[in-house]
């Protein structure tokens, strides 16, 4: 058709289609990216002159920094909790003969599928039993709830392909269950554990809706940005958002690559 003679046919429309899809994905993000460099104090088209001033100012704004820090540690803690909780759950689901396993796997995605508004509201009502938990701790709990589904799924898919004979060999050679976990399961599942952690981290870091319900007076970065946007459209926010996007996309890309790599390794084994 449109392929050049002598080369493999690669229709031009396929390339165009691909480019369009990626534009569709990334145009809004790129817009923020461009406005972060806009010199005008109130961002708007057209962008005439560029500056990196807003990055400097954004990173010096105590309110933004505080929110950034809060989001960071909340993401670290909830991602750690989600990963640590996901490992035994995934081991049980992948390895043990559990009656009704399919149903269990089916409902494991529940918290992700439920609209975040509903989850947020539910958590808020639940926390009325323990009002002290509202705030940063509440956000950690909420994000752990969300992320443990992802991490369990990621770890499950890795452990499913795990050769059982490796565990048996270790135990046969004198390793207790705990030792087998440390010597065999942990090192071999490490890429999946890393990937699960990174995805959980980025998931928590950018999450707004559920956090908003349970944050109380705590301000995570998305909440802070949202609050700002209600009053002014500050280019500082664009700058910070750009930084975060770059970091998030890098982390999640790394995580994806990691998953793909270990999936290949499993297929080879």
């Amino acid at each position, binding site marked *: 058709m449109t392929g050049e003679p002598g080369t493999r046919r690669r229709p031009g429309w396929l390339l165009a289609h691909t480019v369009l899809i990626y534009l569709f994905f990334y145009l809004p993000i790129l817009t923020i990216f461009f406005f972060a460099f806009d010199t005008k104090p109130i961002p708007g088209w057209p962008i005439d002159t560029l500056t990196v001033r807003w990055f400097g100012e954004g990173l010096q704004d105590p309110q933004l920094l505080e929110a950034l820090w809060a989001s960071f540690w909340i993401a670290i803690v909830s991602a750690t909790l989600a990963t640590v909780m996901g490992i035994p759950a995934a081991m049980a689901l992948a390895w043990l003969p559990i009656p009704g396993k399919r149903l269990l796997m089916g409902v494991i995605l529940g918290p992700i599928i439920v609209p975040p508004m509903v989850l947020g509201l539910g958590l808020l009502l639940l926390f009325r039993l323990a009002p002290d938990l509202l705030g940063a701790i509440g956000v950690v709990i909420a994000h752990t709830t969300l992320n443990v589904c992802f991490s369990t799924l990621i770890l499950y898919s890795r452990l499913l392909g795990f*050769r059982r*004979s*490796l565990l*048996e*060999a270790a135990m*046969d*050679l004198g390793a207790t269950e705990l*030792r087998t976990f440390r010597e065999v399961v942990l090192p071999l599942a490490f890429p999946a554990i890393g990937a699960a952690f990174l995805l959980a981290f980025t998931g928590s870091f950018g999450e707004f809706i559920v956090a908003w319900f349970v944050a109380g007076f705590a301000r995570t970065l998305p909440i802070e940005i949202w609050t700002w946007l209600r009053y002014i459209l500050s280019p500082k926010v664009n700058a910070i958002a750009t930084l975060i996007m770059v970091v998030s996309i890098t982390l999640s890309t790394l995580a994806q690559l990691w998953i793909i790599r270990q999936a290949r390794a499993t297929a080879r*084994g």
Partner: protein
Amino acid sequence: MAAAPPPPRPTREIAVTVDRVTKRYGQTVAVDDVSFEVAQGEFVTLLGPSGCGKTTLLRLISGFIEPTAGDIRLHEGSVLGVPPYRRNTSMVFQDYALFPHRTVAQNIGFGLRMRGVPPAAIERRVETMLELLNLSGLGGRRIGAISGGQAQRVALGRALVVEPAVLLLDEPLGALDLKLRKQMQTELKGIQRRVGATFLYVTHDQEEALTMSDRVAVMSRGHIEQLDAPLDVYRRPANPFVADFIGEANLIPGRVAAVAPPLVRVESEHAPAPLTASVAGPEVKPGDPVLIVVRPEDLHVDRTGTRTENAVRGRVRDVVFSGPATKVVVEVGPALSLAALVRPGEAPAADGAAVAVWWAPEDAVVVARAAENPQQSLK
């Protein structure tokens, strides 16, 4: 069918005792009241088709599963309820189960490290093991960087280096190609002799079993059908299953006419005169339904078709040349064809000519069969 004659009691020290062990999964009986012993330094093979319970037995001994009934004893006594990591057994897995994130030397030293052996001693013993297995210089290699045959030997070394009371091998040569498999058979047997280890080996490959073992336990449907030296299993099968499973066998149905140990006379609808064979396993008495078992290499073809003594008559249906021997298929009746192996020059033409096939009485044995269905439990 557990009525096989008791195996000759080994005089050496007993390494493993399996005592009336049964393993049930719900309604399914994987291992059904099995008893046997393995002596120190002995090479015993559990041979049988898939699903006969042989791998289940290995897993029962290694402790990955617990028996429903019965007892399993190693040197130190009963190991019921003892977890695998505290049983002095080690297993060579079908897929080797080498740790991909460790080197060859680390794999071999794993068991020693778990037992708290000091690093210097581990290094020394791993080195000795590498030498024994012809793997010297490969200790630092990654598992992904060695060949299938080498991986097989690493798996063997890893299990052997901890000096287990018994080494359990679960079809360890199954993943190798034919040539390598033959070579490893010899090597495996050699290593076993040199270190004097006790091997309990599982396979469905009868040649492997007959080549390497001191004794072979032929298993079917959770039972041991016969436990004997390879030659006896082949020459003196205890029942139709063993006769048919090991090698190729001609099975001629009939009824016992007279018993004169060690010979027995059998009347068969396929033969004009009573046939003579030897008594192999359990006692038979006149009137018992039996099968005469004759190996193709013990069956002779009389091309004149006139022989009547210990002979059955039929027509040549097929002649297959295969190098050292030619297989002659003689149709005796609608439900019975016999195969004979003859030297290439002595084969008749496959023309439907009338011939007689015969055997020497000492080359054939009788086994009991169920009266109604002479082909019971076969194929």
